[in-house]
């Protein structure tokens, strides 16, 4: 426990890094995921902008990226980060990897949640003279908002998981603390405290997500 106290400033810093990596991943990856997921949904057969080719391409890209184990994706994306002018290691590169992985994961979650919207509601809006774009932005997404919030909350847990893994390329997350000061220095207490902090982040995130969803769905 003394060791944990000695490392307190490192713990604090890595806690913040974990939070902003996860938050950044959720927001940026979430926006891309929302876009791609909505694209997947509206372009499917019978969808409001049904287009086989677009749907095929989106599906292929998402299915291509999603099976890559995140540990490998982090390493594989090093050149991509450098191409963006960000170092191949550290926090910046970690964010690139997290955004990348979360975007494709969230795409599927978004698509699944949009499927749950009654197609009749979209038809009603079209019958009232709404353009397809209006139907998407003023009916489809608001109708699915509750499930979407829960879906994003679900994604947050996976993203926090990713912040631990990016420790391997040197991101200053709680994962790295556990690896460097816990695993490699045979200090189980340090590992346990790092895990507890991760659990805390996830619990708070889930709490906020549930509260928001409850407000939107009124149940």
């Amino acid at each position: 426990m003394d060791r944990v106290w000695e490392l307190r400033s490192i713990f604090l810093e890595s806690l913040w890094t974990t939070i902003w990596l996860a938050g950044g991943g959720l927001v940026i990856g979430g926006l891309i995921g929302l876009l791609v997921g909505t694209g997947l949904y509206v372009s499917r057969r019978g969808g409001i902008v049904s287009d086989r080719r677009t749907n095929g391409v989106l599906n292929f890209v998402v299915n291509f990226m999603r099976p890559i184990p995140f540990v490998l994706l982090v390493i594989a994306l090093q050149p991509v980060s450098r191409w963006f002018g960000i170092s191949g290691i550290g926090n910046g590169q970690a964010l690139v990897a997290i955004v990348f992985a979360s975007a494709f994961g969230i795409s599927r979650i978004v698509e699944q949640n949009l499927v749950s919207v009654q197609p009749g509601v979209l038809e009603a809006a079209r019958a009232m003279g709404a353009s397809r774009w209006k139907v998407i932005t003023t009916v489809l997404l608001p109708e699915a908002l509750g499930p979407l919030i829960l879906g994003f909350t679900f994604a947050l847990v996976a993203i926090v998981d990713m912040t631990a893994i990016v420790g391997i390329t040197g991101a200053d997350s709680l994962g790295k603390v556990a690896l460097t000061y816990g695993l490699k220095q045979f200090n189980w207490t340090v590992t346990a405290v790092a895990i507890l902090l991760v659990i805390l982040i996830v619990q708070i995130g889930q709490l906020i997500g549930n509260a928001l969803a409850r407000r939107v769905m009124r149940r």
Partner: protein
Amino acid sequence: MALIELRGVSKTYPPTRKGGDPVRAVDDVDLSIEAGEIVGVVGYSGAGKSTLVRLINALEPTTSGTLEVDGTDVTTLRERQLQKVRLDIGMIFQQFNLFGSRTVWGNIAYPLEIAKVPKAEHQKRISELLHFVGLADKAHAWPEQLSGGQKQRVGIARALATSPKILLADEATSALDPETTVEVLRLLKRVNTELGITIVVITHEMDVVKTIADRVVVMEEGRIVEQGPVFEIFARPQQPATRRFVSTLVDDVPDEASVVSLRRRHPGRLLTLSFRDESVSQSAVFAEIIGRGVEFELVFGGVEDVRGRTFGHLTLELRGDRAAVDEAVRAVSALVETTEVA
């Protein structure tokens, strides 16, 4: 010039599986709907009636034929122009399709937002509509807090928000119980008489047609098989499909199974009288029978009132002296249409 005019309209969907036949949902339909009418389109599920209404507001593009709404051929319009046309055509649905993310107020405001009606005018218009459908106290309720009938009334208010000329009702009462159905139909009738809106009602319930329609169109396998004024269709259905629909409401000549059960208790001569014309009174017909010393009993059938005119089919069992019965049957047949029941 009719308000809605379909000429040779067809709608074909691509085959549902590879190598299958394309599906002809609507097949070479000619139909004119005049302004101010209520037209009932009846047919079993899969008859093409739902597709037909979606062609009118161009939610589905036609495959061939011309379709004019208020003088504009909608088959030639682009999506953007169609959006304008749709502001003039309201639509209500079997499942109501209210927006769960909006209150009653927000639901009715939606079409106003789409039509770019200035925000300042929303308040007046929405409260007008809520009063018209009798839901002024539910303005801030959420859809899930409403009963089925209330939801449909919100649906109607929402469909009327942009003051359309036409209202399309797609099985609008099919998810409602009989009492609520009557309420909603009464409201639709008011929409027609007080606001002068032309209504196209899609239904599989003859009761709905009988209650509010002026004219009936019967569809089967994508085609219109029969159409005419409601009383005519009820009193003299020509096609088997039409007859089946009418018989759901009024007993016709007893079918085989009914005859077998009737025969068990009624050995006498069975005769069905069809009253389709008010020129012949029932009492005159019965007088002919009684006058000849023939006894009779009413064993099957019924009468209905459609648009203030009575019609029906009554099956009688005639008993008595054979020659007198023959004589009575002859006399009655001279007055009304009769059918011998074997």
